[in-house]
């Protein structure tokens, strides 16, 4: 008796099964043990997880790490740049300050004493590899100009007067846009700015607001 026949007999509780079942309890299992069918939701879950598996994975983790390293490096670099620029600025201010004092103490205030910008400007030609802007500033008569070295740069010094006060303006070409700054050093006011690829420093014992007015007029003119 094969299992198939035995199964049919079992369904009718046929007593002739006895003999077969002695040798084949498997038939009982095959015919009557429960066959568990997968819950319908399981197939959807599996399909979804396979979709996730095949979706191209963006390596977020390495990307995030790279981004944060980049950010940290650029932040540090900025601080370094800022510090060096601040340091640089400090150095220039120091030089401007001592040049200004020297020009007042000694006899070397003016190489070209002239109130005519058309005399002063051409005088620099051949002495500098750039042509500094020389302008008349209302209320601050031009006194003349001279050659200077500021922080290692050959610079044009333009001298303006206001009552008994002297204003020195140092000019040199600079690609780096110098930060505009206003500072006071031992009673002298300093202002720096840049225009048209030139770095400008103005220093005077004028009060701060008059120097500011001077700078504004110079930059306008």
């Amino acid at each position, binding site marked *: 008796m094969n299992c198939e026949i035995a199964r049919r007999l*079992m*369904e009718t*509780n046929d*007593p002739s*099964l*006895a*003999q*077969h*079942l*002695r040798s*084949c*309890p*498997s038939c*009982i*299992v*095959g015919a*009557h*043990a*429960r*066959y*568990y*069918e*997968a*819950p319908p939701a*399981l*197939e959807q*879950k*599996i*399909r979804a*997880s*396979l*979709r996730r*598996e*095949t*979706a*191209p994975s963006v390596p977020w983790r390495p990307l995030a790490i790279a981004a944060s390293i980049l950010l940290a490096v650029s932040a540090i670099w900025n601080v370094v740049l800022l510090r060096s620029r601040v340091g640089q600025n400090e150095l220039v201010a120091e030089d401007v300050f001592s040049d200004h004092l020297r020009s007042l103490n000694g006899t070397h205030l003016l190489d070209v004493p002239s109130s005519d910008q058309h005399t002063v400007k051409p005088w620099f030609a051949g002495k500098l590899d750039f042509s500094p802007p020389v302008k008349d500033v209302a209320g601050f008569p031009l006194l003349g100009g001279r050659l200077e070295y500021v922080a290692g740069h050959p610079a044009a010094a333009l001298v303006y007067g206001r009552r008994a006060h002297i204003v020195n303006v140092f000019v040199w070409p600079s690609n780096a846009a110098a930060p505009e700054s206003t500072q006071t050093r031992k009673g002298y006011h300093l202002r720096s700015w840049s225009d048209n690829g030139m770095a400008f420093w103005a220093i005077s014992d004028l009060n701060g607001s008059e120097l500011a007015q001077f700078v504004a007029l110079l930059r306008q003119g």
Partner: protein
Amino acid sequence: MAVIPAPMANKLALFEQSVLPHLNAAYNLARWLTRSATDAEDLVQEAYLRAFRSFETFQGQDARAWLLAIVRNTCFTWMRKKGDQPAIEFDEQIHGPEDAPDAESILLNEAALGSLQNCLEALPLEYREAIVLRELEELSYREISDIARVPIGTVMSRLARARRRLQQCLEGALK
């Protein structure tokens, strides 16, 4: 939704076409091995992911047997980790009583079916595996030996012992 690259899409389509249809077999095996519906569901899902990842190793043989081997391994690994399934003894001395049960007393009523369920679940894991693969999936000894990674002789002896235990169990339950 991200676009699936073409080779992946092909693999997925082939996989769904050849392996997904055997979901019931996978679930039935996992359900009998773990005796828990929720565990079976989780393990089948995990087994399908494993199967998909190693689909390259599938050489076009019987997809059902290939899948069942993965389901079986997933279940066994999980149960071993859980530590709640003592490995069965392979002691040849373990024999049932030689007198066969009185089959006529086995009435296939509700009680008997309940007993059958209990007796099957009470079988040691490896015996249960062999019986389910043989009687419910109707796999050959060769296929079972491949899935369970044991020699055919071991499959046969496991089946023999499993049947004997079932007989004893059913007899005891229906007395």
